[in-house]
């Protein structure tokens, strides 16, 4: 039986408690509010808006709304009728008058190559059209590509308000105009290779960081403070240097005429005419990324190892375990939290790494992020870029989800 408990001034205890707690919660919220607003407006909203572009084609749809609507009744099996071609003619005419036909050309060109020149030429000749004659014939007269049904099919598809075709492209698949999904020709397949390479590099860099960071973190955790502080500064030094500067210095070190090759040649390990290719390939990407991401592995490991009492290892050896056995059964399991936190941190950073592969990676060392940048800056296919970015984001979230399932996010220690 839940009797009503009241405070000394006669209020219900539960009500009073809420009242008192409310002030505390408000204070807490106000403290977090500036950052929360900043994150929402500068981070969450822009990101989702950008990611929306991967399926959003509303602008294109608005340029050619009526054409799109009329085309819904056209099944695409034979050349479109006059209803379609006339509507397209009038809308294109409006586009030329308002000077957005260039955008239409670019967007349609993503659907099918050749559209740029096709639209441009047609736009120039539009004023010569006789509005009482057959439009299709006049289109074909301007450019014979209009006689190819695929261009009309592409026009229909290209004016959909939204579509998921960019996600197919992300994995080197395409949707044929008949609706079937096929892999693109082998020589054009690049994205899957890049995805696999990105995952390989991310896993590899994580592993290299782990191998390098584990002993140094252990040393840091057992050394007396005055030495460990010095060592910690050495580990953290990269944080205080610009990423660009560090990557550039790797270029100085790794290039064919660079410091490393010079040293190896002068020591006689490598012949002068067969200097090592350390840059513009995966090796360079690996070396530079490992160095740059190392602190993200050291810090969580160090913070976990710092809490492991040295007496545990002593206890294990006093009970008869060899130092190796004690390490394997006692010390190593106790560092799992640090290993997993460091690994997930390095992996997530590595999977989206951009500057370093761009500078030292060359053609053989670039990663998916470089491809995203290429589509953002050069091909200007933002839909494809954001589709790739969305896949990347989902991949990272899946990794987090798995981590939470297996280790538990509460066990994460970042130092």
């Amino acid at each position: 039986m839940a009797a009503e408990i009241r405070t000394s001034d006669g209020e219900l205890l539960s009500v009073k408690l809420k009242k008192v707690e409310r002030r505390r919660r408000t204070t807490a919220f106000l403290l977090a509010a500036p950052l929360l607003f900043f994150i929402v407006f500068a981070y969450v909203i822009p990101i989702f808006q950008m990611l929306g572009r991967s399926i959003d084609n509303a602008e294109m749809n608005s340029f050619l709304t009526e054409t799109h609507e009329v085309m819904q009744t056209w099944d695409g099996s034979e050349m479109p009728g006059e209803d379609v071609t006339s509507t397209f003619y009038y809308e294109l005419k409006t586009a030329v008058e308002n000077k957005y036909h260039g955008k239409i050309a670019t967007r349609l060109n993503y659907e099918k190559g050749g559209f740029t020149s096709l639209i441009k030429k047609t736009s120039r000749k539009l004023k010569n059209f006789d509005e009482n004659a057959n439009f299709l014939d006049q289109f074909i007269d301007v450019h014979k590509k209009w006689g190819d049904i695929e261009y009309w099919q592409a026009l229909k598809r290209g004016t959909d308000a939204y579509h998921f075709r960019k996600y197919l492209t992300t994995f080197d698949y395409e949707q044929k105009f008949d609706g079937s999904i096929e892999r693109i020709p082998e020589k054009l397949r690049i994205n899957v290779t890049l995805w696999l390479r990105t995952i390989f590099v991310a896993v590899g860099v994580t592993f290299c960081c782990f191998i390098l960071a584990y002993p140094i973190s252990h040393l840091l955790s057992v050394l007396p403070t005055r030495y460990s502080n010095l060592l910690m500064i050495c580990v953290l030094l990269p944080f205080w240097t610009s990423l660009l500067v560090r990557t550039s210095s790797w270029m100085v070190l790794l290039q064919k005429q660079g410091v490393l090759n010079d040293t190896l040649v002068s020591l006689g390990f490598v012949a002068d005419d067969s200097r090592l290719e350390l840059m513009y390939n995966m090796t360079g990407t690996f070396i530079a990324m490992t160095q740059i991401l190392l602190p993200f592995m050291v810090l969580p490991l160090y913070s976990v190892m710092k809490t492991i009492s040295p007496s545990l290892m002593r206890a294990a050896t006093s009970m008869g375990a060899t130092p190796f056995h004690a390490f394997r059964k006692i010390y190593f399991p106790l560092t799992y939290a640090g290993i997993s936190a460091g690994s997930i941190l390095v992996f997530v950073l590595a999977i989206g790494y951009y500057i370093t592969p761009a500078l030292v990676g060359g053609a053989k060392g670039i990663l998916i992020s470089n491809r995203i940048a290429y589509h953002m800056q050069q091909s200007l296919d933002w839909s494809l870029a954001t589709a790739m970015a969305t896949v990347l984001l989902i991949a990272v979230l899946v990794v987090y989800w798995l981590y939470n399932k297996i280790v538990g996010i509460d066990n994460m220690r970042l130092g």
Partner: protein
Amino acid sequence: MNSKKSDFVKFEQVDKSYDGKELVVKGLDLDIAEGEFLTLLGPSGSGKTTTLMMLAGFETPTNGEIYFDGRPINNIPPHKRGIGMVFQNYALFPHLSVYENLAFPLKVRKVDKSEIEERINKTLKMVSLTGFENRMPAQLSGGQQQRVAVARALVFDPKLVLMDEPLGALDKNLRESMQYELKHIHESLGVTVVYVTHDQGEALTMSNRIAVFNDGKVQQLSGPNELYETPVNSFVASFIGENNTFTGTVKEIASGSAKIETDSGETIVANPIAVSSSGEKSRISLRPERVSIDPNEQLENKFTSEIREIIYHGDHTRVRVNLLGNDDFILKVPNASSDLKLNVGDKLDLGWSSHDCRALDY
């Protein structure tokens, strides 16, 4: 029983230095008998823990040799010594259950499964923790963790168990009951125990013998009562139990008795322990409970004091008096004799036998 070795563990001229400038342990010679409960007692920094760590194998002697069961062990790594150890903060493996913690030393020794279970059950019963097998260390109270640590050090039947201030983190009541428990475990198993503590009460309660450490040296090695009753130097006298001291110069010395003039000019008849000739400076040590109030019997030393402070302690009352210029002279008055009317400022006649008052080094 007569087969028990008196030098089961032997330290021979052991020195230890960490920094190459200062010796933490100086020329240590120490024999530990089989089945004995030996306590290394001393203030922090006295070298007692270092001594224990050298025996466990976690520190290497800078000089000298340690023998365990007749074998020199300086070059034997800790995991081959077969010595059980209980650590200050228990050092339970936090990711393993109580059962797995106890199974660890047995699995290392490749004991087969059924025997592991049997031994763990037996050991847990001994420390009254049956039913706690599946708990994790973090789910146990301090006292329970302590028992697990003890059980883990005993489960593989080592001949020697080392304990490094194992009760230091427990509260007073629990510490006292654990002292008795450890003592009983020791008695029932007959295992040799080397125990390190800075708590003299703990040492006196549990040990067969106590080695008092100071400044890297063993000051005195003897049984608890001897240590308390007949300290051989002023460090031991002041470190163990309560102690009233006077400083003075030896005036006359004969066998079993010396006349010492205190700094205040009075003469005390004392038992010469660490003085041998007249003119020597000496510190006289006298236990509070050896002082009689209003003495009737014939005593060599009789003086009048003035009460400075009265402190009630439950079972007894402590009276601080001024005696022969010593303002910190403490008396213990049992509360059964509370018919004694004590007031600050009163005069009080005191007396003690020359035998109980020991003239030690200055």
